[in-house]
């Protein structure tokens, strides 16, 4: 195999537990975003747009959707003879099978994959974020500064700094200290979880880390501090564009709805930095005689006979006459019944909202089910769920995936309520 200068390893095994029912059956990188995409598309598109054509995708949690989405990498032009995309799932070894116990362990278990390409550099990415970044510029910086490791950082507001891993740097950009979620941050440079390493150097640290039984096998907690302790040359690379971890329902909703602004914070219409995804086979969408669309994003295959305001509608959605949708995200192939009203809600893939049903009405109330995850006024309905006709759902309600009309005991669920069907992997 031809030697590659750089190989990307994309960590896509995260559950994203704070997205609640949205990630109950799929991994966070597979969650739909932006009216057409899945979260991982942004990182994969960054790779190909940066000229990286060898990408290993490390999966673990609920990988089915992710695997079928990625396929052989065609949409990203990553179906290559030499390199291309490779899905790296945990596997059995001679003695025993092991799950990936941490981010560093996941890479450690795939050392042989990287070795085969014998790259000079590896870039570690996560499939959890929405951003556009040219990794080749970061690689240039890494080479110019002759670093052993370069960590991409973003300036965050001081108040929020204690939620991130903070890099404390000298004037020349070298890192002298890393603090995970510090109480009193000394700087506001947060790690974006994007690392470029000299492969020879990283491999050595991964092997050493693997032997330590008290290690969490995590890049942030173990590998970076160990390298710092050994006085390796580590640089912070400043990134200034849009970068969001859409890891909570509130953050997911805010970032998605912001796309409908006249000039959104994140531009999906850049012809020089396209975002790629498998294109659904649908005709262009149709706005009917009674349809009305204002400040919204509508994807292909939709049929709109109702009113849509300030919302993002994914491919193949039908919105029937008299329906009113505001501040909401409707995922692929959902059906919105006639004269229904939907406010500030997220409706999962292939779900059906009955005629005259209402979602997201009334006043906010704390979630009776899981106030840690469901802590906003947003009502979330999972995928493949049917909400019967005339049902009324309050604010901050959560309805599980695969709910049928038989699962409803009454046609009213007050704010903060929930309808969850067995299975506890949320």
């Amino acid at each position, binding site marked *: 195999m031809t030697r590659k200068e750089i190989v990307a390893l994309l960590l896509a095994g995260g559950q994203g537990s704070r997205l609640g029912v949205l990630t109950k059956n799929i991994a966070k990188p597979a969650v739909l975003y*932006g009216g057409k995409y899945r979260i991982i598309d942004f990182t994969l598109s960054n790779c190909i747009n940066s000229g990286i054509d060898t990408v290993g995708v490390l999966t673990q949690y609920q990988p089915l959707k992710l695997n079928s989405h990625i396929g052989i990498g065609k949409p990203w032009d990553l179906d290559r003879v030499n390199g291309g995309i490779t899905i790296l799932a945990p596997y059995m070894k001679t003695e025993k099978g092991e799950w990936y116990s941490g981010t560093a362990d996941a890479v450690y278990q795939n050392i042989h994959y990287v070795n085969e390409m014998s790259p000079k550099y590896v870039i570690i990415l996560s499939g959890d974020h929405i951003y556009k970044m040219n990794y080749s510029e970061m690689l240039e910086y890494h080479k110019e500064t002759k670093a052993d490791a370069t960590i991409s950082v973003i300036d965050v507001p001081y108040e929020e700094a204690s939620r991130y891993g903070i890099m404390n740097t000298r004037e020349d950009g070298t890192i002298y200290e890393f603090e995970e979620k510090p109480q009193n941050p000394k700087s506001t440079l947060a790690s974006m979880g994007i690392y470029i390493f000299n492969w020879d150097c990283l491999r050595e640290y991964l092997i050493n880390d693997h032997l330590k039984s008290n290690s969490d096998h995590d890049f942030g907690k173990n590998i970076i501090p160990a390298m710092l302790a050994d006085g390796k040359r580590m640089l912070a690379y400043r990134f200034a564009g849009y970068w969001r971890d859409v890891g909570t329902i509130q953050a997911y909703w805010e970032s998605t709805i912001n796309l409908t602004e006249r000039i959104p914070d994140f531009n999906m219409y850049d012809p020089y930095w396209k975002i790629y995804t498998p294109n659904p086979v*649908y005709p262009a969408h149709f*706005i009917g005689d009674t349809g009305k669309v204002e400040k919204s994003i*509508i994807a292909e295959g939709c049929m709109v006979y109702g009113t849509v305001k300030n919302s993002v*509608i994914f491919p193949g959605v039908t919105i029937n006459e008299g329906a009113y949708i505001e501040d909401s995200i409707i995922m692929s192939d959902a059906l919105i019944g006639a004269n229904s009203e939907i406010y500030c809600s997220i409706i999962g893939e292939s779900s059906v909202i009955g005629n005259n049903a209402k979602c997201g009405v009334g006043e906010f109330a704390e979630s009776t089910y899981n106030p840690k995850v469901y802590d906003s006024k947003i009502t979330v309905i999972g995928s493949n769920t049917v909400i019967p006709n005339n049902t009324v759902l309050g604010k901050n309600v959560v309805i599980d995936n695969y709910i049928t009309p038989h699962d409803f005991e009454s046609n009213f669920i007050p704010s903060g309520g929930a309808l969850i069907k067995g299975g506890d992997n949320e």
Partner: protein
Amino acid sequence: MKSTMGIILTGGKNSRLKELSLERSIAAVPFGGKYRVIDFTLSNMVNSGITNVGVITQYNIRSLMDHLGSGKEWDLDRKNEGLFIFPPYLSEFGSGWYKGTADALYNNLTFLLRSDEEFVVIGQGYAIYNMEFDPMLEQHINKNADITIACRNMSDFSFNDQKNMGMVQIDDDGRIIDFMEKPLNPKNNLGSMGVYIIRRKLLIELLQDSAAKGQTELVQDIIVKNTDTLRIYSYIFNGYWRPLSNIQLYYRTNMELLNPKVRNELFMSRRKIFTKVKDEAPAKYNEEARVRNSIVADGCIIEGEVENCVLFRGVRIMKGAVVKNSLIMQGSVVESNTHLSYCILDKGVTITAGKTLNGDSEWPLIVGKNVKV
């Protein structure tokens, strides 16, 4: 579909679509927001399980070649078989340009000889329809026909349109007893859709035979002249079908997509229409957007008023613009405070601020590719 190959004829020189077909063949003309005309016949073949398809091209082939590429959107990038494109060529024996449909097929006889399918479906690159060829093949076999021609009741076309079609007369068994190509006085409403099924070996024989006689046309020389000697049968198709053979039909057919019945028949069955993808972000509507009864493709950004229109990919309608009854093709920009009605804007057109352009429902105003008005 069992052992069947496909051939798509994309036609000779045609200026009936005016400016739209000056630089491309009809098969490559954009249609319905995101498609090219050939997508329909090609998808029909793929949906009928045909995996060996030859596209015979002649005029202005660049944009058609660009669109078809390796055939991967239709799942025709195969190791064995797949998509083949046949432009005219010069050789010791051939003169280059195809002199007619039969001549075009004869020039590519090697393709027919080397394939090993039992049957051939021949289709046209200029028609919009969603059709499964399996039942037609079944009838072809049951009737022990030599040639089966897909026909339909053409009463939804004007008398003038019918005069440009091949009209047929059949007996009680469905056998074609008379075939009139472009008749002055059509006797009934049954017309040919230009879709034929024939045994591959018979087609080779007929082509060799007609070439020896110096004949060049599939319809006039092979079909019309052989209604007595060959068992030529009709297969009645009852669905939606439109040939885009003039600008009125092109405009009307695009507009008919606004009818849910037509749209559902073409696009919402399990037989999908495939096309080349462009990776545009979904369409965006700003606050001022007022869109009614229109088709809007990905990548559009709309701030104006749009009614009864088809907007192709990446179109911009700016503030205060009012666009009605128009087709706006890929990448065109309609600047603020313009008024358009009954217009067809080809790809990449810019209508500068404040302009008013009015066409007529029978004679829509066409603005050529990349023109700035």
